[in-house]
């Protein structure tokens, strides 16, 4: 069986890659280029607001090279989780960029656009039919969650992407997709086994992060054959080692041996990693076990108000020792001042130097820092409320008295004027569930565009 080569240019579309690595990759004559464009890591805001977390010009820079290379080499280009969160506005941003580049460079190709936003009523119907369950430590889905959700996406598996290739698309751009899918789909569609193909995708999806020294902005090449796959670096400054590749199987996963995914799970119990060249690792024994019922992961967020923050510092040892009481004073004064005005807000503090990074998980309880950083955070029902309360809390904290105070001119050092920053609309995750579907294509309609 001839080897099938998949080139992964970077960890996330827009994170960039050195042209020297990319050209080295193209010189190996890859059969496909694939790139992941998304993640839930940046938090709920991006899905809710419909904003990509990657910059337009950074994505355009990467897409320029990828589209040109796909056209010149007559190979498919697959992009998953477009625009970061893979909802409709995210997908549209990246589709528009592709059209723009194609126009500028006079490129012509058949493009498949696969949508991943899921209608609330479709989920509700599944909820009625008891086909939704929580994924991990998540509360069971309620109808209220669906009413409150501003956007829901489903995470597609390999099948819709392979289907797009089957339909003759040279460029495939998909909404939210299971990260390894775009790498596995061209190999699966060419007849390679899903176990090694999906595991290869799992290693390739973060670009050169699976090499050492790792990088989120460099290329990695995967090659799949009968019963094995190999990954190798394309930059002489890095190598893939057994440890770097095996370690990447752990990355961002709860269990490195059984990895659940749309329609089944990867069983890596008998997987072996072997160094076959200085920069190349061969992996064997990875198995795909299809699930009895096909499930798709849903991600959704709800609105949680509007945020305003103030950043300040403190270098006074008495104030630092009294900081817990100072926070209470400020909260109480604010509550009292706006009592009866119907102001709906939450006021909280982050004290850097005192559990600011780890909060309740922090085991160090008695440290005495010589200075602290303070973030005053207000989430209000609207931006005006958040601005008002944050400004009031700031002036109160600046001038309030506390036991043993000697510095009566002011309690805070502000690095900026204005002191307040608007964080805009706030979203919270409220859907992270598995939904049983009749077939892998059900939630993911495809359109074909001749560019």
């Amino acid at each position, binding site marked *: 069986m001839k080897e099938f080569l998949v080139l992964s240019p970077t960890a996330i579309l827009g994170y960039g890659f050195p042209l020297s690595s990319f050209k080295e990759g193209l010189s190996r004559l890859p059969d496909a280029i694939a790139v992941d464009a998304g993640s839930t890591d940046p938090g709920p805001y991006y899905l809710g607001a419909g904003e990509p977390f990657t910059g337009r010009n950074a994505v355009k820079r990467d897409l320029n090279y990828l589209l040109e290379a796909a056209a010149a080499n007559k190979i498919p280009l697959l992009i998953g989780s477009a625009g970061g969160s893979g909802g409709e506005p995210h997908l549209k941003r990246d589709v528009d960029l592709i059209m723009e580049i194609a126009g500028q460079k006079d490129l012509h190709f058949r493009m498949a656009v696969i949508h991943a936003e899921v209608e609330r009523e479709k989920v509700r119907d599944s909820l009625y039919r008891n086909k939704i369950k929580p994924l991990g430590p*998540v509360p069971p889905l309620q109808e209220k969650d669906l009413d409150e959700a501003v956007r829901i996406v489903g995470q597609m598996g390999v099948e819709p992407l392979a289907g797009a290739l089957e339909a003759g698309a040279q460029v495939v751009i998909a909404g939210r997709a299971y990260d390894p899918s775009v790498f596995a789909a061209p190999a699966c569609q060419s007849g390679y086994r899903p176990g090694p193909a999906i595991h290869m995708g799992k290693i390739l999806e973060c670009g050169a992060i699976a090499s050492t020294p790792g990088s989120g902005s460099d290329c990695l090449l995967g090659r799949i054959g009968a019963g094995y796959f190999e990954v190798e670096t394309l930059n002489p400054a890095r190598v893939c080692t057994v*440890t770097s590749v095996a370690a990447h199987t752990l990355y961002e996963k709860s269990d490195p041996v059984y990895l659940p995914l749309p329609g089944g799970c990867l069983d890596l119990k008998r997987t072996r990693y072997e160094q076959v060249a200085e920069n190349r690792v061969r992996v064997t024994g990875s198995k795909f076990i299809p699930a009895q019922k096909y499930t798709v992961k849903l991600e959704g967020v709800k609105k949680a108000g509007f945020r305003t923050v103030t950043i300040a510092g403190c270098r006074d040892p008495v104030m630092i020792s009294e900081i817990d009481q100072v926070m209470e004073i400020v909260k109480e004064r604010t509550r009292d001042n706006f009592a009866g005005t119907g102001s709906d807000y939450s006021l909280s503090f982050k004290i850097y130097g005192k559990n600011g990074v780890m909060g309740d998980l922090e*085991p160090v309880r008695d440290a005495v820092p010589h200075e602290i950083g303070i973030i005053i955070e207000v989430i209000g029902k609207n931006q005006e409320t958040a601005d008002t309360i944050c400004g009031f809390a700031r002036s109160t904290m600046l001038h309030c008295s506390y036991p043993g105070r000697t510095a009566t001119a002011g309690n805070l050092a502000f690095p900026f004027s204005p002191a307040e920053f608007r964080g805009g609309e706030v979203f919270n995750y409220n859907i992270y569930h598995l939904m049983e579907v009749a077939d892998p294509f059900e939630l993911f309609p495809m359109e074909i565009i001749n560019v």
Partner: protein
Amino acid sequence: MKKIKLTEMAEVIRSKNSGPYELTLDIIFKDRENFELARRSGVFTKKMFAALYGIEADGVIDVIEFAPANAIKATIVRPVVSGGAGDSDIYGAQQHAPLLNIEVPMG
């Protein structure tokens, strides 16, 4: 009993989200010898991780040994969902520091 610091045994000690609701802690040892010493020590239990982070034992979802990477990993329930009210580490990438103080008895 003589003890060896985890920082002398491991080359990777890290934390990261495993989805928005879980936090996963990875310890990748320098070699098979250190990994074997660690797994035989009996130090790496749900109870130890719970005590280290001041959470209930059932907040530790699993502790798993992964020999191909000479790794031990633990996954805990996030005290606050990523990006939720009061969260201080959206990516979960800076929750590993308590692991740096672990010591393993040289059996």
